[in-house]
C-alpha cells in the first residue's frame, strides 16, 4: 500500500495478466480491483451493482433504464443543469447504464481533477435527486427512442425473439421499456429499484490508471461509504429457452428480411461452457473465416452481416445469431444457417477448425486490454459474473485445454437436434 512508484506495465507473453491487478480493500471494507498505471494521466472507474433490469417489477419494464438515465440529472446540491456544468467544467465523463443482471456506472477523469470527479461520482451514486422534471424528461427521451425503433427491423426481430424465448420472465421483457407501459411508470418505481439495488454488498468496482492503492482505498469509503450495507434483491428464477422449432414473421415493408435465430445454450458454470464458446466461434464468431461468414456471405453473397454468439446470463444461457438478407433469399439464408448448425452438431468441428478457433480466442484476448476504460469495464463485469482475478490467466489455459472430444461433445449439447427459434422482420418469401 502507498507506493507511488511509476510502473509502466509491460506484459510479455508468459507474463501474468492477473498479476497486474490487485485487490484493494478500503478501511471501511469496500473492495475494488485496481490496475495502477501512470502512462497516461487519466483514471477510469467502473462499477456494477448486481440486480439490474431483472429486478424490475412484473409489467414495469424500463425502470432500470430510467434509473440509469436519472443518476446524472441532478444530485446533492446540484440540479440537473448545474450537475452537467460541474462535469463539463473539468471535462469529467460520467455515465450509467442498465443491463439485465446489473446496473453499471463509469467515470473517467484527468488525474489532476480526480478529487472533483470522485465527489461528483459520490453525489450521483448516493444522492441523486430523481426530481420530477428530470424524471419526465428522461422518460420522454426513452419514449422517443422507443418510437424511433418501433419499426426498426433489428429492434423488431430482437424484441420478438426475446419475448418468445423467455415468456413470463424478466429476461423476455424489453430492456429499455415498452411504449404501452412506460407512461404509467412513476418516480416511486425508480426510487424503489434504487433502494433495492444500491448497496455495498452487491457492489463490484474496478479502477485503472493514475492512482495508488492507499488513495483509492480512502476514496472508496468517501464515494460509496454512505450506501446501505445490504441490497434487497428479489430472487430471479432460472429459465430454459422456449420456442425452438418455431418461426415467427413480423410484417414490415422493407426490402430486406432481418433474422434472429437461437436456442438453449450451455450455462457459464457448466464444465462445457468454454468448449461451447470455442464451438460457437467456429460457427459464427467475429472473423472472416467463420463458417456462417464463408457460407452465407462469401460464397453466396446472401448478406453483409451474419454472426452467432453465446449470451450467458446469471439465470439463462442462449445461442443467439442474426443476419439480414433480401426478402427473396431469406429462406435460402436460413437453410444455409440451419445446415451448418446441424453439421456441427453431428460431426463437430474439424481438428483444424478447433485449433484455429482456439488460437484466435487465446491470441485476441490481449486486444481487450488496450484502453483504461475497456479494462475497467471488463474487470467490473468479471466480478459481477462471479469470477476471481485468477480467471484473467485461467481463461486462456481453459481454452487451450479444449480437446476435439470436448468440442464435439459441446457441439452436440449446444446444437442438439438443430431446432431453432427464428424471428423475422420484413417480407420474406417462402417463410
Amino acid at each position, binding site marked *: 500500500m502507498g507506493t507511488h512508484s511509476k510502473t*509502466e*506495465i*509491460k*506484459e*510479455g*507473453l508468459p507474463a501474468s495478466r492477473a498479476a497486474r491487478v490487485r485487490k484493494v480493500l478500503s478501511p471501511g471494507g469496500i473492495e475494488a480491483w485496481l490496475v495502477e498505471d501512470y*502512462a*497516461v*494521466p*487519466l483514471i*477510469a472507474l467502473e462499477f456494477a451493482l448486481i440486480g439490474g433490469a431483472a429486478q424490475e417489477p412484473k409489467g414495469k419494464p424500463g425502470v432500470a433504464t430510467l434509473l440509469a438515465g436519472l443518476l446524472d440529472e441532478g444530485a446533492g446540491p446540484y440540479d440537473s*443543469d448545474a450537475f*452537467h*456544468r460541474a*462535469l*463539463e*467544467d*473539468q*471535462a469529467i465523463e460520467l455515465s450509467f447504464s442498465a443491463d439485465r443482471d446489473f446496473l453499471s456506472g463509469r467515470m*473517467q477523469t*484527468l488525474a489532476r481533477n480526480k478529487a472533483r470527479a470522485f465527489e461528483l461520482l459520490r453525489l450521483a451514486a448516493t444522492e441523486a435527486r430523481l426530481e420530477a422534471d428530470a424524471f419526465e*424528461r428522461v422518460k*420522454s427521451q426513452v*419514449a*422517443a*427512442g422507443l418510437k*424511433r425503433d*418501433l*419499426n426498426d*427491423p433489428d429492434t423488431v426481430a430482437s424484441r420478438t425473439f426475446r419475448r418468445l424465448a423467455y415468456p413470463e420472465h424478466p429476461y423476455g421483457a424489453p430492456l429499455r421499456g415498452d411504449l404501452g407501459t412506460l407512461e404509467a411508470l412513476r418516480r416511486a418505481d425508480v426510487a424503489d429499484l434504487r433502494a433495492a439495488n444500491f448497496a455495498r454488498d452487491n457492489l463490484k468496482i474496478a479502477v485503472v490508471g493514475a492512482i495508488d492503492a492507499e488513495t483509492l482505498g480512502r476514496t472508496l469509503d468517501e464515494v460509496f461509504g454512505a450506501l446501505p450495507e445490504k441490497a434487497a434483491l428479489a430472487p430471479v428464477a432460472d429459465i430454459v429457452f422456449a420456442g425452438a422449432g418455431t418461426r415467427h414473421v413480423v410484417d414490415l*415493408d*422493407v*426490402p*430486406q428480411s*432481418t433474422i434472429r435465430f437461437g436456442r438453449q445454450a450451455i450455462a457459464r458454470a457448466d464444465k462445457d461452457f468454454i468448449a461451447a464458446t470455442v464451438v460457437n466461434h467456429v460457427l459464427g464468431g*467475429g472473423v*472472416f*473465416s467463420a463458417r456462417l461468414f464463408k457460407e452465407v*456471405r462469401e*460464397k*453466396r*453473397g*446472401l*448478406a*453483409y*452481416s451474419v454472426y452467432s454468439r453465446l449470451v450467458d446470463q446469471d439465470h439463462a444461457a442462449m445461442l443467439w445469431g442474426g443476419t*439480414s*438478407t*433480401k426478402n427473396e433469399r431469406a429462406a435460402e439464408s436460413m437453410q444455409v444457417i440451419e445446415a451448418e448448425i446441424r453439421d456441427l452438431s453431428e460431426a463437430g468441428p474439424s481438428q483444424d477448425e478447433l485449433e*484455429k478457433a482456439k*488460437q*484466435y480466442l*487465446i*491470441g*485476441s484476448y*490481449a*486486444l481487450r486490454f*488496450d*484502453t483504461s476504460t475497456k479494462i475497467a469495464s471488463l474487470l467490473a463485469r468479471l466480478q459481477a459474473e462471479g469470477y476471481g482475478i485468477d480467471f484473467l490467466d485461467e481463461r486462456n489455459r481453459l481454452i487451450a485445454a479444449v480437446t476435439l472430444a470436448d468440442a464435439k461433445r459441446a457441439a452436440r449439447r449446444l446444437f442438439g437436434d438443430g431446432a431453432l427459434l427464428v424471428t423475422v422482420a*420484413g417480407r420474406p418469401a417462402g417463410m
Partner: protein
Amino acid sequence: MSLPATVPLTPSAATPAKPAGPRVASARLDNGLDIVVVPDHRAPVVTHMVWYRNGSADDPIGKSGIAHFLEHLMFKGTKGHPAGEFSELIAGLGGQENAFTSTDFTAYFQRVAKEHLKICMEYEADRMSNLVLAGEVVVPEREVVLEERRMRTDSDPADLLNEAVQAALFTRHPYGSPVIGWQSDIEGLGRADALAYYDRFYTPENAILIVAGDVEPAAVIDLARAIYGRISARGETPKRIRVREPDVRAHRLVTLADPKVEQPSYQTVFLVPSYRTAASGEAEALEVLAHHLGGGPASLLFKALVIDKKIAVSAGAYYDGTALNDTRFYAYATPAPGVSLETLDTEIARLIAEVAAHGIAEADLARVKTRLVADAVYAQDSQVALAHWYGASLAIGLSLADIAAWPERIETVRAADVVKATRWLDARRSVTGFLLPEAAAAA
C-alpha cells in the same frame, strides 16, 4: 468491412478526439510512402494501418460506390496469396482486421500481438500492387454490398433522408453521393471498374502507413523500408479532381414521410469550411461554436430546447471538420410530443442569431475549451483512436505539426472568433431535413 456512417443524425462521437501528447515519429520512403509511428507501451499489441488518400468523393461520375466496393474486393487475394489466406492467418494469430471507406480516404488495418507486425506488413504491401480479381468473386461480393446498402439505408427512413439531405446540400460536389454508392450505380459496377480504380489510387505515393502500439519507431521504419520499400514508385501522386461546390444562395427543405416513422426528427446542415479550406483559426472557432451550441447536456441548444422550453427531448450540434473540401456543420433535435419541426427550426435559428448578436460568455468559452483540450488527453488512452486521428488528418493533407498544435489553436480561439464563425450558419447555405410520419405529412 465496415463503412462509417456518413451522416449520423444523433452523433455519438460528434467531434473526433484530438490527441496532443504522444511522441510520434515519421518518415517518407523513396517510393513516396509516408510513415507515422505512435508508440504506446501499455500493452504488447500493435495497430497496423494503411490509409489511401482516396475515398468515395473520388468515385468517377456514374460509378458511385467504387471506392467502397474495391475495399471489399481487396480481401479477395493476390498473385502470391489466394483469397482468405491473409484473413485465416490473422485469425490464427488472434488478430483482428477490417477496413473502412469514407468520403476522403480508405483504410485497412490489423490489430495483433506486436511480434506479428512484420507479417501484417508483408501481406498489406503485397495487396498494394498484386491484387487479383477473379470474375467469380466479384459478383457475389457486389450482392454483399447491395445487402449492406439494404441493411444500413434502404430499410431505414432516417438514413434515406440523410442521403437526400446530403445530395441537396452538395449540388455538384461528390460529398453529395453516399459513400456506399447509389443502388443503380452499384448494380453496374464490375471487375474492370474496380481494377481501373485500383491502378489509379493504390500506389505507395498515395498511401500512409500508421503503426501505433508497443513498438520502437526506428525499428518500425526500418522494417517498413525493407517491406513496403520494395514497391516501385509510380512517379507521381494520383490527382484528386474535385469540382468546387458553388455558392448556392438558397435554403432547401427536404422532407421524408414514411409510415414506418413513429418519431419525427429535425436536422439542419450548413455548408462550412473544413480544417483544410478554412482561413487560419476559423475551423477551430467552428469547433468551439459547435460545442457551445450543441455539445452535450450543458450546451445552449439542449438547455433552451430540452430543459427550459421543453419543446424537444434531445438537441445538439457538431462540426465535421476533418474533410478535404468544404464540409458540414449540423444542428439536430428530436421534438417533444405535439411540437412541430417548424417550431424547432425557428428556435434553433433564434439561438444561432443570439450567439451572433451577443457572443459567448467567457465562462462558457473556458468550459468548451477545457472539454475540447481534454479530449486530446482522453484520446491517448486508445491507440486505435490515435491511429484514426493521425490517419484521417494526414489523409486530408494536414501535417503532424497541425495535429500537435491543435490544442494550442483551440486555446487561442477568442469570443470574437466564435461570433465571426456564426456567419457560416446562414440559412441560405443550408439544407433542413424533416423526418415525419406519413399522416403528419399529409395533414
